């Protein structure tokens, strides 16, 4: 509620909750008069609803819209909004709605308490973490602790009153005392906790961050992954180490007309130095209206290439639309793997999403494993020609709607996918030379592609055995200036950023390749098994008028897919960039890198070993203490059993032994009388142990009395600490 409404508007809702809760509680104890009272209140409320139904609906619509905005901008959950422009007296409507919301909340709470729905209370406790997780907002700690204290007490009250009603007597006084004590302990401990572990430090703690990351990774792995098929990092660059992939099928693709394709999965638009992320939810929500109208015109970022193909009048370009069925075997099921040539989005994926047409994220708790769509044949291999044809078509004023839609989308793409940090811009200026004025336009595609390729080929080394980067710095900067060794993830990242340096919108993409090799000898309708090793990361650039196209920037992959003729149609327009300066520094020797990492690993290993040793030692101590305690408790119980034994001789022997134990705890602590008793008990004990004569009931009674007396005197003589040790550590009594 505090997210939805201002602080001053909290008073009506809290007031109505409080008043209604008091009313319900009071009338519950008033028998039939209470019932009349409740009925009267119900009638008044219903009359109020009839009287203020207009304002109530207006208030509800206003708060619904607020909620939709918050969910959309923070969680990427898009809800339909109501038209509220014509609402008169907005404040009154909000006030009336809040009052009724408070009344409804109080009645619901009362019913939950009355009907003992304890699972609902538990679920209610999870609302806050769920909202916190979805909205990414940290609730106020003080209010939160009080909220959970209330939930705990309510849960306890319901549990203590649940079950059968017969043969029970519950004391309100006991519950009240317990509640006060529990609150006092929680508040005191909460204040102390705040001193020892301030909330500011907690959030920034590495342990917490790591735990959160591990937990989220674990959950997403559980939801979307079926084992490790390859090491594509989902944009998390700092988790990316050596490239490894399995030969197992990641995807099974059945095509009506088999063709080699780039299948896009994860698409990263925002680079933060350590990972690629999709568009920020708040930015995406601001662009929601733009995408709504684009979609109304049938313009989707994902299908733009096919749409452009429709404009181009060229029979040499692929025009074969075919059905594609995808069965996700072991690939990440959170993404829908779609080619650049997709003609229409699958059903259920045509609405606006926070990914702003960059990628298709699967719906459902465990993602999507089976889906199908229609796609054109390979257009990527001819994108330069296609671009030229589209340019010509647009110049002829063909495709009016497309021209307008593309211009809007183009503006969005340029505003979003050309962002580059100052540090990287400086670095690229140094490494690539002057990239031209990005405000005025981008470098022509051919020049940009050539220069970036040239730089990457000359200065960097492809290797699947790249080490993960665990430093605090920028991933790309480290790759380009420090390690200079990497695989497709490193190359795609660096290239995407370099394209941005040249003013060309670009994104980082992870997905799978259906290579010409894979479709060789495949007939229409044959299933193509795409292995995990076909997983790949690449760069896609936005070509004005045409849309997003993949550009292979990893040297090892140049010949894997059919490539467009880059000399055709790419040199149109664009500022000229300066030549790449000669590299100043030679890349460091391989041995040095390996040594550096070996040292790091060794240190990490020692640290881990020490932690492990400490953990083992702690565990041993805990088990030892636990075992000793259990053994002593057992001995104490056995002794008590012997004391109550039906066999007098056995009982007396046990009691005499116990008396001896008490005596050794401090002979000087006992009175003369107790010592006399002890001596007598010793004699009886010896008789019980060694003599064939029977032990009388009288003797047993005397021994028991002696033990009692000694115990009493020992307890009295010892301090509270001594007594505590004897009782809980030595388990003497």
């Amino acid at each position, binding site marked *: 509620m505090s997210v939805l409404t201002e602080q001053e508007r909290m008073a009506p809702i809290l007031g109505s909750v409080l008043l209604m809760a008091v009313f319900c509680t009071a009338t519950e104890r008033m028998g039939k008069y209470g019932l009349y009272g409740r009925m009267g209140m119900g009638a008044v409320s219903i009359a109020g609803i009839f009287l203020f139904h207009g304002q109530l609906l207006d208030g509800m619509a206003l708060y619904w819209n607020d909620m939709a905005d918050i969910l959309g901008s923070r969680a990427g959950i898009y809800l339909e909004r109501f038209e509220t422009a014509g609402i008169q007296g907005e404040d009154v409507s909000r006030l009336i709605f809040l009052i009724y919301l408070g009344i409804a909340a109080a009645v619901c709470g009362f019913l939950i308490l009355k009907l003992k729905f*304890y699972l609902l209370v*538990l679920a209610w*406790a*999870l609302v*806050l*973490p769920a909202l*916190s*997780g979805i909205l990414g907002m*940290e*609730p106020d*700690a003080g209010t*939160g*602790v009080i909220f*959970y204290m209330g939930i*705990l007490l309510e*849960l*306890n009250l319901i*549990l*203590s009153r*649940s*079950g*059968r009603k*017969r*043969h*029970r*007597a*519950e*004391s*309100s*006084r*006991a*519950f*009240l*005392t*317990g509640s006060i*004590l*529990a609150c006092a*302990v*929680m508040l005191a*401990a*909460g204040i102390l*906790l*705040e001193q020892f*572990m301030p*909330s500011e430090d*907690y*959030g920034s703690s590495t342990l*917490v*961050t790591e*735990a*959160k990351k591990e*937990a*989220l990774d674990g*959950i997403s792995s559980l939801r979307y992954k079926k084992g490790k098929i390859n090491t594509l990092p989902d944009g998390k660059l700092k988790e990316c180490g050596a490239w490894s992939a399995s030969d197992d099928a990641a995807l099974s693709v059945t095509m009506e007309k088999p063709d080699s394709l780039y299948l896009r999965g994860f698409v990263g638009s925002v680079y933060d130095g350590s990972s690629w992320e999709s568009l920020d939810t708040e930015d995406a929500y601001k662009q929601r209206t733009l995408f709504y109208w684009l979609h109304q015109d049938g313009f989707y970022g994902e299908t733009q290439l096919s749409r452009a193909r429709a404009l181009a009048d060229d029979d040499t370009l692929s025009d074969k639309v075919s059905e594609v069925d995808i069965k996700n075997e072991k690939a990440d099921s959170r993404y829908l793997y779609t080619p650049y040539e997709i003609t229409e989005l699958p059903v259920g994926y045509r609405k606006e999403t926070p990914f702003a047409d960059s990628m298709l994220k699967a719906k459902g708790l465990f993602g999507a494993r089976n889906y199908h769509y229609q796609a054109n044949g390979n257009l990527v291999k001819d994108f330069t020609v296609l671009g030229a044809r589209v340019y010509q078509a647009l110049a002829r004023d063909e495709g009016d709607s497309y021209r307008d839609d593309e211009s809007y989308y183009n503006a969005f793409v340029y505003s979003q996918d050309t962002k580059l940090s100052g540090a990287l811009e400086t670095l690229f200026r140094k490494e690539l030379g002057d990239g031209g004025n990005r405000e005025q336009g981008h470098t022509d595609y051919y020049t940009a592609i050539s220069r970036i390729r040239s730089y990457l080929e000359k200065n960097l080394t492809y290797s699947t055995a790249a080490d993960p980067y665990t430093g605090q710095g920028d991933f790309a900067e480290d790759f380009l200036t420090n390690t200079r060794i990497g695989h497709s993830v490193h190359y795609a990242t660096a290239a995407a950023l370099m394209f941005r340096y040249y003013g060309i919108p670009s994104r980082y993409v992870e997905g799978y390749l259906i290579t010409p090799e894979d479709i060789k000898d495949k007939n229409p309708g044959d299933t193509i098994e795409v292995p995990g090793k076909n997983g790949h990361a690449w760069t896609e650039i936005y070509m004005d008028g045409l849309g997003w196209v993949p550009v292979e920037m990893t040297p090892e992959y140049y010949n894997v897919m059919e490539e467009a003729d880059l000399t055709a149609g790419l040199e149109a327009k664009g500022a000229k960039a300066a030549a790449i300066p000669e590299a100043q520094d030679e890349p460091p020797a391989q041995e040095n890198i390996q040594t550096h990492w070996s040292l790091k690993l060794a240190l990490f290993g020692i640290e881990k070993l020490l932690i492990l040793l400490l953990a083992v030692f702690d565990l041993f101590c805990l088990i030892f203490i636990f075992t000793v305690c259990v053994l002593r408790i057992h001995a104490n119980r056995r002794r008590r059993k012997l004391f109550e034994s039906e066999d007098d001789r056995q009982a007396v022997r046990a009691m005499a032994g116990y008396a001896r134990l008490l005596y050794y705890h401090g002979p000087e602590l006992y009175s003369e009388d107790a010592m006399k008793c002890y001596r007598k008990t010793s004699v009886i004990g010896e008789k019980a142990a060694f003599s064939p004569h029977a032990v009388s009931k009288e003797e047993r009674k005397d021994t028991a009395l002696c033990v009692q007396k000694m115990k009493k005197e020992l307890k009295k003589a010892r301090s509270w600490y001594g007594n505590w040790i004897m009782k809980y550590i030595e388990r003497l009594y």
Partner: protein
Amino acid sequence: MIKDRILWLLWLVCMAGAAVITGTWLFAAVLLLTVLILIFSAGSVVLSGKKAVIKLHLPKASERMECFHGKMYLENQSAWPVFGGAGVLRWENLFTGEKGVIPISFSLGGKEKQVIGFEAGSNWCGCIRFCFSDWKCQDFFRVFSLKRKADTCAYTVVMPERQKGELSLFTREGFDMESFRYSGSRPGDDPGETYDIREYRSGDSIRQIHWKLSGKLDDIMIREKSFPVDDTVLILAEAFQAERDPQRAETVAEVFSAVLQSFMEQKISCQAGIYDHSSGKFRLEKIRTEEDRENILYRFLRYGSDAKTPVTVREYLKDPGIQNFANYVYITGDPQDKEAELLAAKGEVTIVECGTDGRDSGGEQVLWKYGSQNPKDSQKQHMENNCPVSCWKLH
């Protein structure tokens, strides 16, 4: 309590999950505070219930097939509350072996008293013992518990149905006696009444010779004196059964009641003897009034129920007292019970055995409809509620 524990575990798991997944201080704090409060709560159990006094109260006697109301008085003499208490009230019919439990739960504020009412009933007569031996003292959240002793018991006796039997034993003629002041079965030394006239046998005292008759019959005849008795009949009832069967036990109690009732109505002077396990003594009571009958029946059910072996006859013979009886009636529900043979030397013994048809003994047999006067029972139940009773004289 299991439900509470599961829910608390769920709570901790949820909070731990929330703390890890959201990385928010609030949930970590709530998790830590919950753990802390549970530890505190566990510690508080040690202080709870140490001075709780529990007492049971039951009516002295009650009717068969009817509910009786008991009360459990709870008092916390300590200022520290008992946040939760749970125990089981165990009841057992000592006479028939019926058993049951009533779960009890409560909480007590500091220095507070509570009363828990409970209802119970028995289908059979007998002494019903209610025991609340120990209970679990729970913490505020009902997650931890400690055992506490209560050791309190209470008893109530469910009296049997009043019935009139059809055995000849219940009639005056059944004893076939001329006098109720002298024994008809053994000679004595009271010269006031002749027991028997017979021929002389060596060893007979000369004083016993009936000279007049000897002269007439021309043979030495001996006149035996009679044995005076204080009461005509001693009725001994045995509650022991090697294999407990509520039907037989019920029948024993009803037959015992019916015999006493019958004798009382016919003015046959009799006494009843039972063994009182509480005092460890044999108890002999004259049965003259309805009150006497109810008293002995109550004692029989209340204190005679938990027998491990048949003891009534042996205990009687250990210390028979100075009173003499002409007849002995021994009522038992155990088919293997041969104790009555020990009485043969003392007088004529009639054995009433419940649960066997006694065809070998040659006595009379009836089918005893126990509890058949209960109007709540259906006709079918009336037909089914029967137990064979046999009655014969020991020769």
